[in-house]
């Protein structure tokens, strides 16, 4: 096994200094939060661990969920289990608890983190579509500065983000849902647990006098990144939910999605199911 440096900082400042020094010395660092993805990818591929491993699982500062004015701040180190169980999120951003609770298995949810899921930037990440509709803003910290970036600008492509080698994702700020706001998350998967989604829909809107306004829709697993479904949003925004509108969903979905055929599903099925989910959500709200 490759002999590399390991770091287990106990506070954020220390972690950021390690990143800074490594960067300065040209040493590449593999950051490990829960390890659920990193360890699977590093199995049989030691070079994946780069020059050193920085474990951030002991950073208590980034493991809190709290309110801040009309926003909720979620520490990047919060586990899926923690989010799924959070009363605060259940009350004010229930879509996140729903999305977190379908990830992997209990063991995976006990370790996997929201920050890890974001930094993986996988189009199949279950938590991402919900973060898109909640207007998530990410806090990226380095030893010298802090910056805030909307999630959409953060993720550039499958597995690609704008994070810098000396930066750490520390916090995710999401909208706190208003009382009349409605959200839902649906996904299809090959089995009930331990499954990666084949396609998913995150929905947000406000029901006002029989119509939906402020509609935001994000789609997972149907493109190289999470897709903001503008055609679908436009179709639904301010319109009455009736059969006529529902009938137009499939073509709006078609216009938004860029799915592919892979081991899990087909592109036709993926877009079809997105349409089904969207219609189901609209009927139920």
């Amino acid at each position: 096994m490759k002999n590399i440096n390991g770091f287990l900082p106990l506070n954020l400042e220390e972690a950021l200094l390690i990143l800074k020094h490594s960067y300065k010395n040209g040493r590449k660092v593999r950051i490990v939060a829960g390890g659920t993805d990193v360890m699977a990818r590093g199995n049989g591929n030691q070079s994946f661990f780069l020059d050193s491993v920085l474990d951030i699982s002991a950073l208590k500062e980034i493991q809190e969920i709290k309110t801040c004015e009309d926003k909720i701040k979620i520490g990047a180190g919060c586990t899926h289990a923690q989010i799924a169980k959070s009363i605060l999120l259940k009350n004010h951003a229930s879509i996140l608890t729903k999305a977190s609770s379908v990830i992997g298995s209990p063991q995976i949810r006990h370790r996997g983190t929201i920050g890890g899921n974001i930094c993986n930037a996988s189009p199949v990440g279950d938590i991402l579509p919900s973060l898109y509709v909640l207007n998530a803003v990410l806090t990226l910290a380095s030893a010298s500065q802090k910056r805030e970036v909307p999630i959409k600008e953060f993720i550039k492509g499958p597995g690609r983000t704008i994070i810098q080698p000396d930066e750490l994702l520390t916090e995710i700020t999401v909208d706190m849902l208003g009382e009349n706001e409605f959200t839902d998350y649906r996904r299809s998967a090959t089995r009930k647990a331990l499954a990666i989604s084949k396609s998913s829909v995150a929905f947000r809107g406000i029901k006002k006098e029989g119509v939906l306004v402020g509609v935001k829709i994000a789609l997972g697993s149907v493109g190289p990144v999470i897709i903001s479904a503008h055609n679908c949003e436009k179709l639904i925004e301010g319109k009455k939910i009736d059969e006529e509108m529902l009938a137009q969903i499939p073509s709006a979905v078609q216009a938004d999605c860029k799915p592919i055929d892979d081991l899990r599903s087909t592109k036709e099925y993926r877009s079809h199911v997105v349409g089904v989910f969207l219609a189901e959500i609209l009927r139920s709200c």
Partner: protein
Amino acid sequence: MKINFNINGIVKEVDIPPQKPLCDVIREDFGLTGTKIGCREGECGACTVIMDGMTVNSCLVPAVSAEGREIITIEGLQQFPETEIINDNFKKVGAVQCGYCIPGMVMSSYALLKDNKNPTEDEIRQGLSGNLCRCTGYKRIVLAVEGAARDLNKIEGGNEDEKH
């Protein structure tokens, strides 16, 4: 990297690469082979251990993450009276076949029952959904956990009675 492990109450410092999977530390450095390896990617759950009270796939925990945490493996689980009851129920209903998934199943069952004294069938199925078994079809494993929940409640109920 020198890392301090606390496995089943035994504290030991081991000098190993930080990315070494915890399952290998448990098996190679601590000689505890009850923790099985089936896939090394968190799918099968055969390597499930309890870390700070929660089940984790030990194949996905890098050694460095285990520093300062309390780890319980299937060997360590034997010290708890609940384990005896779980074991008895697995035996009684015939929930064990080839046995390779079983240590992981018992870990998950134990954690599930700690969390939820009266799990429904659905909750049991969810609680064990990270543990693949290819032999039993799961039915008897679910029945065993149901039985263990009943027996554990009886004992606790009994103790309550004694108190009164």
